[in-house]
């Protein structure tokens, strides 16, 4: 497949992780106190891989060229709107929706990139941020007839949907892949454990693997090398007579298309779009994901995305009564003290916990989680720190 042995192993590892995610994410038996931390339910698994795709794409731009886009959520949102309109007008089959989301996001990122890439550094970031906020404001109010404004868009039985048959009044249209309902799942129980296998998740996981494979190929290609050159010294590149702009623009569009793909998949899994998807915090989130996991590494962004989505969905749902259950065995005074101490960091305080972790990672593991993994591996291997080749897989780009 045109991969080195190391890259192939990585791809296989990611494939296995994706395939067995329903088991890996549900390590605790149902009904036990730790079941709170299980993440193996369809919605979260889908989000993990979809935001993985988003981060992989962002990493192609940020990790390779060093251009920090602060407006990537706009492409995700545009892709989502394109996909939902495809579902409203053409068919509830997810294939056309996903294709159109990639195309529309690609066109939009071409426009934004063409303008924003006239500047670099902080000015580029601000330009992209401005574009994203503009898109958000447009979607939220001015373009309400197209975007549904605050309420967002959902497929309805009244939509034309040329290729599908008409639905009965009030019937809910369901996203499908040639008849396979994205929401359909079956559960398997083994002892106390319950594992859920969801059709939508596996569709998203397969697409994530393809996206991951493409990203490896881009990282290893001469094109990827050019992008790294842009990052290390753009001035020198210019002096050698090379125009860097086509390369950066291509990277920008590719990463915009990845974002569009993620947006289309979000709609395919959960047929609803809201404008908040394009808010600047969403753009910031993908930056966090990439840096947390390890910018410029292949697997880092996927890990970072998983990490943040896990926190958002699991930690945020721990509430006071659950804490009371956990600490119930302790004497009253200590129990209350512990609850008071822990309470600010759970539930609505999950942002706080995430912020602290992010700080710790950036300060102590500048290479992100990937660097953490490397350090642990080095501890166990005790081999001499062999040739430090910047192979992209494990070494964060500078």
């Amino acid at each position, binding site marked *: *497949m045109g991969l080195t*042995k190391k890259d*192939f*192993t990585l791809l296989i590892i990611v494939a296995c992780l994706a395939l067995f995610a329903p088991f890996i994410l549900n390590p605790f038996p149902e009904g036990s106190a730790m079941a709170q931390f*299980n993440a193996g*339910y*369809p*919605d*979260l698994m889908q*989000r993990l891989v979809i935001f993985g795709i988003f981060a992989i794409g962002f990493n192609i731009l940020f990790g390779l060229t060093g251009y920090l886009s602060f407006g990537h959520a706009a492409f995700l949102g545009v892709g989502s709107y394109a996909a939902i309109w495809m579902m409203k007008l053409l068919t509830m089959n997810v294939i056309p929706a996903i294709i159109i989301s990639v195309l529309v996001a690609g066109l939009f990122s071409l426009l934004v990139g063409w303008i924003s890439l006239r500047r670099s550094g902080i000015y580029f970031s601000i330009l992209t941020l401005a574009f994203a906020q503009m898109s958000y*404001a447009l979607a*939220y*109010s001015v373009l*309400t007839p197209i975007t549904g*404004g*605050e*309420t*967002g868009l*959902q497929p*309805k*039985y*009244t939509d034309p949907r040329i290729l599908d048959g008409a639905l*009965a*009044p*009030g*019937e*809910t249209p*369901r996203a499908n892949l040639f008849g396979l309902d994205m*929401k359909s*799942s*079956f*559960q*398997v*129980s*083994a*002892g106390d454990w*319950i*594992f*859920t296998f969801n059709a939508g998740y596996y569709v998203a996981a397969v697409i994530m693997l393809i996206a991951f494979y493409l990203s490896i190929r881009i990282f290893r290609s001469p094109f990827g090398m050019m992008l790294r050159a842009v990052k290390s010294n753009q001035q020198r590149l210019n002096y050698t007579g090379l125009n860097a702009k086509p390369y950066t623009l291509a990277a920008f569009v590719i990463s915009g298309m990845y974002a569009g793909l993620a947006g289309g998949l979000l709609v395919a899994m*959960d*047929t*609803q779009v*809201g404008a*908040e*998807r394009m*808010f600047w915090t969403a753009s910031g989130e993908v930056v966090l994901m990439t840096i947390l996991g390890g910018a410029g590494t292949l697997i880092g962004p996927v890990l970072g995305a998983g990490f943040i989505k896990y926190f*958002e*969905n699991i930690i*945020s*749902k721990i*509430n006071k*009564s659950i804490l009371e259950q956990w600490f119930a065995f302790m004497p009253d005074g200590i129990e209350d003290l512990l609850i008071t101490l822990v309470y600010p960091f759970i*539930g*609505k305080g999950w*942002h706080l916990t995430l912020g602290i972790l992010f700080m710790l990672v950036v300060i102590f593991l500048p290479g992100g989680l990937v660097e953490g993994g490397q350090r642990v591996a080095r501890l166990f291997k005790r081999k001499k720190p062999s040739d430090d080749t910047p192979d992209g897989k494990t070494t964060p780009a500078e």
Partner: protein
Amino acid sequence: MSNSKLTRRGLIKTGAVAGAAGLTLPTYLRADGHAGYLNAPQGDTVTLGFNVPQSGPYADEGADELRAYELAVEHLNGTGADNGMLETFSSDALQGNGILGKKVVYVTGDTQTKSDAARASAKSMIEKDGAIMITGGSSSGVAVAVQALCQEAGVIFMAGLTHSNDTTGKDKRANGFRHFFNSYMSGAALAPVLQNAYGSDRKAYHLTADYNWGYTTEEAVRSSTEAMGWETVNAVKTPLTQTDFSSYIAPVLQSGADVLVLNHYGGNMVNSLTNAVQFGLRDKLVNDKNFEIVVPLYSRLMAKGAGANVKGIFGSTNWHWSLTDEGSKAFVKSFGTKYGFPPSQAAHTCYVQALLYADACERAGTFNPCGVVEALEGFEFDGMGNGPTLYRADDHQCFKDVLVVKGKENPTSEFDLLEIVEVTPVEQVTYAPDHPQVAGGSLGTCNPGA
């Protein structure tokens, strides 16, 4: 695929592992637990999902909603200091022993007042925690998004604070129910009071929050006031994120309008009202009339934010703690005993919704969403603080009296900010299910999810 190596030893190893996995005999489970509907309660507990904004602009409302839900759970399980509205509720199906004999437990989530986040949180409640009913929320966008999700998944949605016509209008769903009033009712209740107070020859200027709820509220207030003779001079949309409204207030005076209608909610309203009062609008004489300000949707939390500026300003509200009927008194008492201050209207509607759901399950004798829908449709009840109320079968909207309130001139405490001017009887705010402001959409059929 030249990288894989197939050896005899490897094959045997793999085979052994696969065999062991096969022997544990995973059994195929149906999500409905063979009960014919999704998330049928197993064991002796039933799980409800409380999906409220814990962060973002409506976090205050969300916190109060959560308090109300916790209180409702105590009352349903019979573990509270008293029984709250269970004593005054006209239906006596609830015994204080949980729902259908099963103890009520709950999970909470943060909607962040974003429809995406709200749906993610609701989905995790349904898929992971096995919640049989989702309730809460403090914005119409979120309510519409979560309601559609619940319809699709096959659980009941009991809307929290959502005021837009669309929730039970063009976006209504068979599995969704709303107790709170809506924009149309606000307009219909306010108009006569405004006519009495300010006369029927007025020129109104609207400032409208630029999103769905703002539009439906503006439309409702406009059509009710225009019907009684007011003229609408201008309607300007303001961005939701706006915090300084001075640039929007200045043109009001030049327009020749003598009434300013603020179709704003939450922080928006606090800021725009404060700006308007600081500009001295209320001391002006325009067309030989005192300049007046109207706020269609009022809440105590907003009145608190705007402080002294709310004095004498009219608005409408779903419920207020100073009501003196038995139901309201019982609720205010148990809420006050537990938390030390009176509940907001958001808390009230959420508490009532939780009780109504539990009662419907008891009367239906099942948790099956279709049974619950049947029990709630056309249900008439009393003793919940709003007088006799009907859950209309056509659109799953509650019809009840609407309160017109006014900012108090001499508040006696930080909670005593609004006074009730009039209780508009239900007949006056009832509309046909196909009224132009709510037309479109269809309930469809109930979905039990399995």
